């Protein structure tokens, strides 16, 4: 991969040229395990064939009245063969399973690392649910690919081939039926594979549809009941469940037509007939007929295994493809380690900035591109200047491009046209570390990690921040009081098993975080704040404190905040339709006046 926002020095590199090669390179990383597995598989197949042959000997020795000695020897051989088989089997199954687990671990690691290295453009376009599906289900599916699917298939193939070799030691003429069987089975399997593939896809798709539809109905149950639309919803569900039922039946029909099982049934009869014929010709002994039949018996479970494995292979390949797709998605930004790294003063200038989501991305992730292939611009020709320490309020409807504008500043995205200057230096010429280190962001949805409150406040600051500094930051952010109201104070864990925080509390922790990291420039999105929060005064005070002395881009819906900003940007559909102070805009802009008309 050419560009990356984050790299690890000693990461193992895998082959990304195709899905198959990718899987291969993951598996071949552990050649020792793979070799052990193959060797023991061969051992197992040989032990199994040996059992069949020795059973034949036992019969011959009895039929030819050789007495107990021959029988005892044969029985001991059988025990030895089975014990040997058991030992091989344990090593074998451990080897392949450990291999599977390692591949799963490594694939997850590789995917995770690649997610970290991707730019926000990428993450902004991904749904968390979809990413999670790939990182969880698809990665697990890769382990199923190795074991049992690849493992049992290798076993099956060897268990199909080794008996053939063994049969040759009985008499080469016995080979005719098994070979015909294998050829026919090969073609039958291919056809089965082709038939199953679309049905399996359909089965998964209809299930997902049914699930998603039901989830939607239940989430919107108040609306469903409020509008008395239960019958319509029932119709929709029945339709979806019916589609799944049809796919299920079709899958059953395909599985029922699994021809290799028929071929196997025919093989037993025809093989027996052929062996008997050879016996009548005096070519083989009774024991050899028995050994032959026992060898044919060993073919049964591989045939059954293949039935199951084909479905797994198909799913695993689809999963591997999805993972690789994600790993291979190009990212546009790099760390720019050689760039400018100096202390910021805080002057921000936008010069004719345009931006569209599809502008650099290639392939399927170019989702900002409209149907006719043109890139749709989210921002067009934005120019403004903010002096150090000024507050710039950005006003406009959702979708007008407000938050995209702020995200260009710290290079979450890069501009398409025009440029953005901080202290007269293009943001693309700053080192990414220095740039992001001096621009603080308080997002719309405040994200806190499931760690302690202290760790969350100190997140991003240098490693060992003294407790006193954390508390000072919390004080300034008006957060100290509520933090101390928890039994564990600053050591309180946040998140699933810890304490749940209200929106206002989260916001103040994020502000505390900004105080501690002390950025020169602040991007603050206050647009989703709740109206009925009775701690509003505290939050507003905290915000007022944190803005002081920093250049701030402020997205807000609050009339009083808008009015007191140094510069107001009024946006509509990606364009800046007016800018100035409150008084200037009240005088110039009809759209702006509309906002205040009710006051």
């Amino acid at each position, binding site marked *: 991969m050419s560009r990356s*926002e984050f790299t690890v020095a000693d990461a193992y590199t895998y082959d990304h040229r195709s899905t198959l090669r990718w899987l291969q390179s993951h598996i071949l990383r552990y050649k020792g395990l793979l070799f052990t597995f193959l060797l023991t598989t061969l051992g197992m197949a040989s032990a199994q064939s040996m059992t069949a042959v020795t059973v034949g000997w036992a019969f011959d020795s*009895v039929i030819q009245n050789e007495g107990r000695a021959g029988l005892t020897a044969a029985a001991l051989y*059988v025990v030895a063969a089975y014990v040997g*088989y058991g030992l091989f089997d344990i090593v074998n199954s451990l080897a392949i399973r450990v291999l599977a687990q390692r591949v799963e671990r490594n694939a997850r690691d590789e995917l*995770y690392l690649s997610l970290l290295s991707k730019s926000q453009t990428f993450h902004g376009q991904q749904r968390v649910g979809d990413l999670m599906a790939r990182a969880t289900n698809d990665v697990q599916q890769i382990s199923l690919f190795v074991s049992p699917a690849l493992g049992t298939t290798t076993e099956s193939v060897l268990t199909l081939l080794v008996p053939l070799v063994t049969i040759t030691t009985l008499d080469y003429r016995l080979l005719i039926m098994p070979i015909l069987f294998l050829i026919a089975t090969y073609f039958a399997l291919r056809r089965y594979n082709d038939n199953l593939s679309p049905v399996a896809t359909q089965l998964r798709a209809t299930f997902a549809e049914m699930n998603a539809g039901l989830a939607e109905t239940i989430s*919107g149950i108040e609306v469903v*009941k409020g509008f008395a639309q239960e019958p319509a919803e029932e119709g929709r569900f029945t339709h979806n469940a019916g589609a799944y039922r049809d796919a299920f039946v079709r899958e059953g029909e395909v599985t029922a037509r699994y021809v290799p099982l028929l071929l196997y049934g025919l093989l037993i009869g025809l093989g027996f007939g052929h062996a008997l014929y050879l*016996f009548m010709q005096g070519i083989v002994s*009774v024991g050899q007929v028995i050994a032959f039949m026992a060898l044919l018996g060993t073919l049964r479970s591989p045939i059954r295994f293949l039935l199951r494995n084909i479905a797994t292979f198909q799913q695993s390949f689809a999963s591997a493809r999805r993972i690789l797709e994600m790993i291979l998605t190009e990212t546009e930004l790099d760390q720019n380690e050689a760039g400018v790294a100096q202390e910021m003063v805080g002057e921000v200038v936008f010069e004719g900035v345009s931006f569209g989501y599809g502008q650099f991305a290639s392939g399927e992730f170019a989702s900002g591109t409209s149907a006719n292939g043109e890139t749709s611009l989210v921002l067009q020709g934005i120019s403004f200047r903010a002096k150090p320490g000024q507050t710039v309020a950005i006003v406009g409807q959702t979708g007008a491009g407000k938050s995209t504008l702020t995200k260009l500043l710290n290079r979450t995205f890069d501009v398409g046209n025009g440029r953005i200057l901080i202290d007269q230096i293009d943001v693309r010429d700053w080192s990414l570390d220095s740039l992001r280190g001096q621009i603080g962001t308080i997002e719309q949805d405040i994200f806190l990690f499931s760690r302690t409150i202290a760790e969350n406040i100190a997140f991003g600051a240098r490693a060992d921040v003294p407790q006193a500094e954390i508390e000072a930051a919390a004080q300034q952010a008006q957060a100290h009081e509520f933090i101390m109201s928890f039994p564990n104070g600053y050591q309180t864990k946040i998140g699933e098993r810890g304490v749940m925080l209200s929106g206002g509390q989260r916001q103040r922790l994020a502000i505390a975080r900004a105080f501690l990291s002390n950025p020169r420039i602040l991007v603050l999105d206050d647009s989703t704040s709740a109206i009925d929060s009775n701690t509003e005064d505290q939050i507003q005070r905290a915000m007022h404190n944190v803005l002081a002395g920093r250049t701030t881009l402020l997205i807000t819906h609050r009339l009083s905040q808008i009015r007191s900003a140094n510069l107001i940007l009024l946006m509509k559909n990606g364009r800046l339709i007016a800018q100035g102070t409150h008084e200037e805009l009240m005088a110039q802009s009809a759209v702006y006046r509309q906002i205040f008309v009710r006051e």
Partner: protein
Amino acid sequence: MGITGGLNPEEYDRNYSDRELVRRIVRYFRPHIGKVLLVAAMVSLISILATATPILISRGIDTLAANPQLQLLLTLAAVITVMGALSWGFNFVSLWFSARAVGDVVLALREDAFRAVMRRDLSFYDQFASGRIVSRVTSDTQDFATVVTLTIDLLSQLVLVLVIGLVLLTQNVPLALITFAVGPVVVIIALVFRRLARNAMQQAQRALATVNATIQETVSGIAVAKNFRQEAAIYDDFQDVNELAYRVQLTRVAVFGSIFPLLNTVSGIAVSVIIYVGGLMAIERDISVGEWYLFVQGLTIFFYPITSLASFWSQFQQGLAASERVFALIDDEPLVVQTANEPVGRLRGEIVFDQMTFNYSTGRSAVLQNFSLTIPAGETLAIVGHTGAGKSSLVKLLMRFYEFQGGDLLVDGRSIRSLDLSQYRRQLGLVPQAPFLFSGTVAENVKYGRPDATDLEVETAARQLGDGSWLEDLPNGLQTDVGERGARLSLGQRQLVALARVLLQNPAILLLDEATASIDPLTEAQVQDALATVLQNRTSIVIAHRLSTVRAADRIIVLRDGQIIEEGSHETLLAQGGHYAELYTTYFRHQSLEYRPW
């Protein structure tokens, strides 16, 4: 779906006796009795053929050893071939029809579960997470199908064990007993294994859940990590968790990797014993060579089903537990039940809460106690109060989403318990706090309550809101795709769609729970215009969070702990300097232009 999705017990779960459970399952199969019998017959035939093949081969071997006749032998081989083909044919028929029977039964079960869920009032949905409900209806019913398929499989294995056991017994008792002795050994191993496996499985699932949670957190918080350049730190954390999960998985691998080799070795030793003892008997001419062969083969055939019985047993139990969960869901009764189904007609919109008492569930404190309120037809009533004062409860009771315990609720003089519920609800228009949109277009959402509405009606309703300019701000106007749950629209736009939806439905009574999160000031202006239209000519109850709404209402009531403590207009209440004045300072003041707390 989580790993343990649907496995956690819910309050409505109950235990069914095995007999009850089986009776319920059987009832679903009754309409498909023909297919079931056919499948059973096929499965038995397959078992019989599976036993007959080695018997015939053993007869063939006897003929070989004693008196080989080509004609006879070839006939034998031909018969075995035909039997192989027949067995496949039976298998085909059995799979073909069982797929249909199982598919239909699962469909019926899902429909029943769905209807049961739809019948439930909102107290049910408050109590149980939607993901869990979904997994009961879709995944648990799926596990039920697995039970059925497994049962067919297990039964056929059982038939096979019985048939082969009987055949072996008739051939030679001592050898048969040696063969049967394998059974208990396998069962004991399987039982020990099950305990180990369950532990290892649970730990592995927990470890996996931790890894997934870590990834989820990273993916959700990636922006923060990137803005603070903390990639290396969280990557280290991830690696630790991932490595730990790998190690836990190794334990599981060790358990699962050794069980089948162990079982195979046991069967191998048994085969050796049969070969040796059988061989001795054959030397003594106690049994023929063919019979000896039959026992060697028979052991394998006998052994296989027992192993699979042991290994599928836990899956079978899981499936039964899943069926139990589905039945519990179906059997639970809703609390909201109508006493009559009187036709409703067009309501005038007079509402009377008469000495009403209400709590969300028994044991919880009452939200409303002897609550009385009369709302004349056509009034716009604003309700204000702190969270938990009972504002939303009033609206939800009016919607008849919940059952109340005392007093009565009269609309146009009739108790809402006696009305036809569907007709009644169509007379009410509800705009919830976070308006829920279904995936589809804006137009589809607007006509959700009236699927038969024409495009023109939809357009007219939408244009009545404000000056209709909100449609111009949508990329494709009415045909804009709203995305999953309306995610592609802003909160304000979703509210506008919800208002248009209600306007098209033309309800007699409007219930509006204003959004608590602020909307951008431009959309806010549009929503306020829209509200002015919607509130006209109908009784309206608004849970107010907006300064402009309370100012415009005919009457404001202040709720505290389910009691009306003040009422009047904005100006008079503010002048009183009571609770309303206090609420104003907390909730409404900071929406004004003059707000400046520092």
